[in-house]
């Protein structure tokens, strides 16, 4: 446990240094945040335009879709703030930077995570929050403590699952050439595909995102409970309470593969 605390403390110290560096360029940072806000805003504008022509999306209203979208967008953007180093991990290998990381007496995971702080992604976070507020304002949800807790657990699980996906994408580059675009399917594509109810896709596709890459837990399954929606006929509703255990297990699994990959990398180095 102390290792986790040390790692967290270290992460914040490194990130603090990054932050002070970024704030030297205030105007530039602000412009980047604003333009990132615009980019993701257009995404949601597209969905809103769709509802200009169609009354519902398989029984889901615009506000309900906005709820899915907002939750996915918030956890995805928070994860994106953490993982910039993993996105460019193939360069660490190509340039031999990884060797330097490995010789330091600090967790490589924390080092890579703290390598860069892409502040412009706050733009996406802001947009996700706005969409979620819009969603909740227009929906008549009977909020109670359980539902609020479930929403918070869902967001946390979403961060874990997305960070895990970026980690897996990074470690895979030890064995293959750059897989950035394929990782993109699960990360960017994952945030996109979960903006819509999973019930609209085919069964094999849906099952893949429940069992293999558990993106169903970052918003869809818990949302069924929060918004009192009837979900998939072949799935009991209570699985929607499980985002956190699923997130922790998936993160643990990816960390295990990460450690394994780094060990393999060391042994081929000599």
């Amino acid at each position: 446990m102390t290792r986790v605390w040390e790692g967290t403390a270290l992460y914040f110290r490194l990130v603090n240094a990054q932050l002070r560096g970024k704030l030297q360029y205030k105007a530039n940072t602000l412009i980047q945040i604003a333009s990132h806000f615009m980019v993701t805003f257009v995404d949601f504008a597209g969905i809103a335009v769709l509802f200009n022509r169609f009354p519902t999306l398989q029984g889901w209203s615009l506000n309900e879709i906005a709820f899915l979208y907002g939750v996915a967008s918030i956890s995805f953007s928070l994860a994106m703030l953490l993982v910039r180093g993993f996105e460019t991990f193939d360069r660490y290998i190509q340039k031999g930077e990884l060797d330097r990381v490995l010789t330091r007496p600090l967790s490589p995971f924390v080092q890579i995570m703290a390598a860069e702080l892409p502040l412009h992604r706050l733009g996406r976070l802001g947009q996700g929050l706005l969409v979620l507020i819009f969603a909740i304002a227009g929906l008549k949800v009977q909020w109670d403590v359980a539902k609020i807790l479930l929403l918070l657990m869902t967001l946390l699980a979403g961060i874990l699952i997305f960070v895990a996906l970026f980690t897996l994408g990074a470690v895979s580059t030890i064995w293959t050439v750059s897989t950035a675009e394929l990782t993109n399917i699960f990360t960017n594509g994952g945030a996109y595909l979960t903006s819509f109810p999973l019930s609209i896709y085919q069964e094999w596709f849906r099952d893949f995102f429940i069992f293999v890459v558990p993106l169903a837990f970052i918003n869809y399954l818990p949302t069924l409970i929060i918004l009192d929606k009837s979900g998939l006929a072949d799935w009991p509703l209570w699985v929607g309470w499980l985002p956190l255990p699923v997130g922790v297990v998936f993160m643990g699994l990816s960390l295990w593969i990460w450690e394994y990959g780094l060990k393999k990398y060391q042994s081929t180095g000599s």
Partner: protein
Amino acid sequence: MRLYYEVGRKAFQRSLAYKLATLTGIIVNSFFGYIHSYIFVAVYSTVLVSTVAGFSLAQAISYAWLTQALITITQIWFDQEISKTIVSGDAVSDFSKPFDYQTFWFSKFAGNSFYACIFRAAPTYLVGFLLFGAQLPHLSTWPLFLMSLLLSVIVSFLIGYIFNLTTFWTLNPTGMLTLGATLQMFFSGFIVPIAYMPDWLGWLANVLPFQAVISIPMQVWLGQRQSWDVLLPQLLWSIVLWGAARWLTGRAMRKITIQGG
């Protein structure tokens, strides 16, 4: 002329070297084609009419796959190659070389487009055709479509080129280029068809140049527009933007000469 042809051919060959990247690109495009198809299936299942804003479900699905194909040809996301040479200073030596700067970059762009057409767009659409019944146009539509596609590549190049050139003045390309690409994605009708938009937004989309990049060739492909006058906005924008790009290139050159003086 020979020079520009060689530049284009080199760009084509360079892309040819990245076989794995092409394959993953097709997978990514197909992935989004798949998701969009099922979104359309979901929304059309809740309406009783068979066409919405001129699109039947089959046409909407074709739209989903066609847009994935067209963005690879028109390179809708604004390549930042030009702006990088401006930041690094390489642009200065490019200006002094014995070729036309704008035509040089267009040749590269065209080479990449031609490559994407064969190795990215066609395979992606084939997936949609085989798995989702995306429609192929009637044989008589092909000449008009190819003309429209050619013009869409020209307009797309010019918009991206102009946005890239602003780097000469802003010196920091990221914000401007992201903003431009975002506008282009939305107003070209790539994210949703322009016909779906509310009147005021659709009106705006139709007076902006971006519709020439995706929406017009798309409407021709789907058989929604079949007369040659559909090309008029594309032709108009090609001419206007080519002139604007020329003027801006001249300004950039002058600026360099003064500063370098």
